[in-house]
């Protein structure tokens, strides 16, 4: 099947923002009578050095967002499209109604607060299980698993490449046995669990499903989210194993399997978070992420899946950075853009297919190692933007994360920050409180317009996989990242405690993980390998290799014969390890090396 056609931006909003302004007579009067004398008396001063990004060609101060987008002095009705009032239903609509700019729920957070889902994982499954019990006991609403680098790369703890990495950036999981320990005492039918795992996503998901099965939980009732977003790995985070085509096939296998067997589980969380952390602008994060969503749908349609069978379970994951208004606009625009793509481009009929549901995490990259307590304030501002943007769930970073994985105290303060926003600030009491703000609506429209411009470019390249192979998003992000760093170096952008307001300080108490975790995991693996039936492991791995080499094709209501998920489940039940299962797939698919774009 060919790709769907190139989409133009929806009619409303097309000419929204760059049109010539027609200020009202009141605004004109203000400009002459109030503004002019003020500027004469007190010229505007940029925030940061009066050079580079902060300097207009005419020598006056220029103000820009953290993404380098110019911010005007004042926004009025003249900054909205001329037909704004007339077509407000297309531009804005009402909460819970298309185009969902104002949110996917008619009552906002009044019926249900966002889920406070703290990402956590470190050292052994035993230690991480303790942290999960602690977070749940302190009012955390769901879990979110951070796996260590060997797990993310599909290596067991005893692989030579795992040396020095076991349990450092997340929890070490080698086999079903570890997964059983990780969730021991946690009811998987009642707790929603998100798992940050990508290239080996289907393997870890299979382990999770088997743990649920052993607990007696009903697969139809369990809910949670698998990150499983390989495209952003090639673009930004770079934890990939196989080349793009077989990787996409594994993702589509999970879509198909999930739509039939785990209807409440999100098989993917299409993630802009890592794109932003790698240095993109807010707009690039928005555009590349949503277009990744387009790419997954294209591949699923090519498999023969029906859009409304899997699209309701596509979920998203955004970053919330420091620039408050820009972030709110990004979140609001994301829902509107997705609605238009799902209806105009993919002709989705199911309302749930048209809803952009997203998780948000505050920007790890914005945290400073200097005066780390200041990060509590940054996180609060970022979390507030996510809530005002209508996120479905939220992770707040701990103040010590620029130094190490969070201590228990730091993790508690991060969770308390969300609770203060939810229970004390009052912002959750009314729906989309920024709706109708001249500034926010103007920014939201610009985000939408900018995203569709990127979509046209990406369509012209033949889709995201092609664009990645050409290094397009990678180069765009590297350029933005470098420009931002130059602005910081020149003090055109101020980072409190880093390039201004710095002090000499003592070091902070951190969570330190030593090499004993690896030794423990290696001992467990040795024991497991001596106890399990090697024959069953060999047999299930051989069956997986065979099916992985075949081309899957969907039949309505049935799982493709070559869908890898049932075979991976068999491997997991036989206690094959993450490394063994990924190695079997490596044998069939090979591995991927990116050309270096610097």
């Amino acid at each position: 099947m060919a790709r769907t056609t190139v989409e133009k931006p929806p009619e409303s909003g097309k000419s929204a923002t760059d049109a010539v302004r027609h200020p009202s007579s009141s605004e004109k009067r203000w400009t002459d009578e109030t503004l002019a004398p003020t500027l004469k008396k007190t010229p505007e001063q940029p925030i940061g050095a009066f050079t580079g990004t902060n300097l207009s060609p005419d020598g006056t101060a220029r103000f820009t967002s953290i993404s380098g987008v110019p911010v005007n002095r004042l926004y009025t009705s003249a900054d909205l499209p001329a037909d704004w009032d007339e077509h407000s239903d297309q531009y804005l609509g009402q909460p819970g109604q298309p185009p969902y700019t104002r949110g996917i729920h008619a009552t906002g957070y009044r019926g249900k607060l966002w889920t406070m889902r703290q990402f956590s994982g470190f050292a052994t499954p035993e230690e991480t299980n303790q942290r999960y019990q602690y977070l749940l006991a302190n009012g955390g609403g769901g879990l979110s698993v951070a796996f260590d680098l060997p797990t993310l790369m599909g290596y067991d703890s005893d692989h030579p490449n795992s040396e020095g990495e076991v349990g450092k950036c997340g929890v070490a999981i080698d086999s079903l046995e570890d997964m059983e320990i990780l969730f021991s005492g946690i009811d998987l039918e009642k707790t929603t669990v998100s798992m940050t795992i990508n290239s080996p996503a289907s393997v870890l998901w299979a382990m999770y499903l088997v743990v649920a099965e052993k607990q007696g939980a009903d697969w139809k009732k369990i809910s949670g989210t698998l990150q499983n977003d390989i495209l952003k790995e090639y673009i930004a985070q770079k934890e990939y194993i196989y080349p793009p085509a077989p990787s996409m096939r594994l993702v589509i296998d999970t879509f198909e399997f999930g739509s039939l067997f785990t209807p409440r589980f999100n098989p993917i969380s299409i993630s802009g978070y890592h794109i932003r952390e790698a240095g993109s602008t807010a707009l690039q994060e928005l555009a590349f992420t949503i277009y990744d969503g387009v790419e997954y749908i294209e591949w699923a349609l090519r498999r023969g899946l029906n859009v409304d069978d899997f699209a309701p379970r596509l979920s998203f994951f955004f970053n919330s950075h420091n620039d408050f208004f820009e972030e709110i606009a990004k979140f609001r625009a994301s829902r509107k853009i997705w609605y238009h793509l799902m209806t105009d481009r993919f002709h989705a009929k199911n309302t749930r297919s048209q809803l952009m549901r997203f998780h948000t995490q505050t920007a790890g990259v914005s945290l400073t190692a200097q005066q780390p307590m200041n990060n509590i304030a940054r996180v609060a501002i970022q979390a507030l933007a996510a809530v005002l943007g209508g996120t479905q769930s939220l992770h707040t970073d701990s103040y010590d994360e620029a130094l190490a994985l969070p201590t228990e105290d730091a993790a508690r303060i991060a969770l308390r920050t969300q609770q203060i926003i939810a229970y004390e600030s009052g912002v959750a009491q009314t729906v989309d409180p920024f709706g109708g703000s001249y500034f926010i609506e103007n920014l939201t429209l610009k985000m939408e317009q900018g995203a569709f411009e990127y979509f046209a470019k990406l369509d012209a390249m033949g889709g995201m996989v092609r664009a990645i192979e050409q290094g397009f998003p990678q180069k765009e992000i590297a350029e933005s990242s470098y420009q931002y760093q130059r602005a910081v170096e020149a003090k055109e952008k101020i980072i409190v405690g880093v390039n201004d307001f710095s002090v000499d300080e003592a070091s902070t108490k951190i969570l330190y993980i030593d090499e004993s975790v690896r030794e423990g995991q290696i001992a467990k693996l040795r024991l497991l390998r001596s106890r399990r039936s090697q024959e069953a492991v060999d047999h299930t791995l051989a069956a997986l290799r065979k099916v992985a080499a075949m081309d899957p094709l969907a039949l309505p209501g049935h799982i493709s014969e070559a869908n890898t998920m049932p075979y991976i489940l068999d491997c997991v039940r036989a206690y094959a390890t993450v490394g063994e299962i990924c190695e079997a797939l490596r044998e069939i698919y090979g591995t991927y090396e990116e050309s270096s774009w610097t």
Partner: protein
Amino acid sequence: MMESTKMPQDILPIRVLVAKPGLDGHDRGAKVIARALRDAGMEVIYTGLRQTPEMIVHAAIQEDVQCIGLSILSGAHNAIVPRIMALLKENGIDDILVILGGTIPDQDIAFLKEQGVAAIFGPGTPLETTVEFIRKNAKPRDVAA
């Protein structure tokens, strides 16, 4: 542009290998520093991701660099750095400046310096600090005929 007292052969650009060892893929820092060093007039070779200590030392020798800049954010530094230093020694190399950037806990700094790391640059270090350190401390290149 250049100090007039120096002859052209004395001012050959400094060659730097920017290397990303370990399993981690977070390469924002490595890429930014590579570009900043290049903008500062140095010749920069970036290894790409997931390089083993053997690959890094091999590349350093092949490329005849004066400085190796390692970027490690995953916590694997105590395993990786000593192996790189040992391999350099095995190859009889003692004139390459080795510097390290990333998230390195304070308590590991003394150990890494004992291993021979000349400097460790944590989050928030100005690019200029790193550039200046390399300029001051990299051994000049032999001028070939």
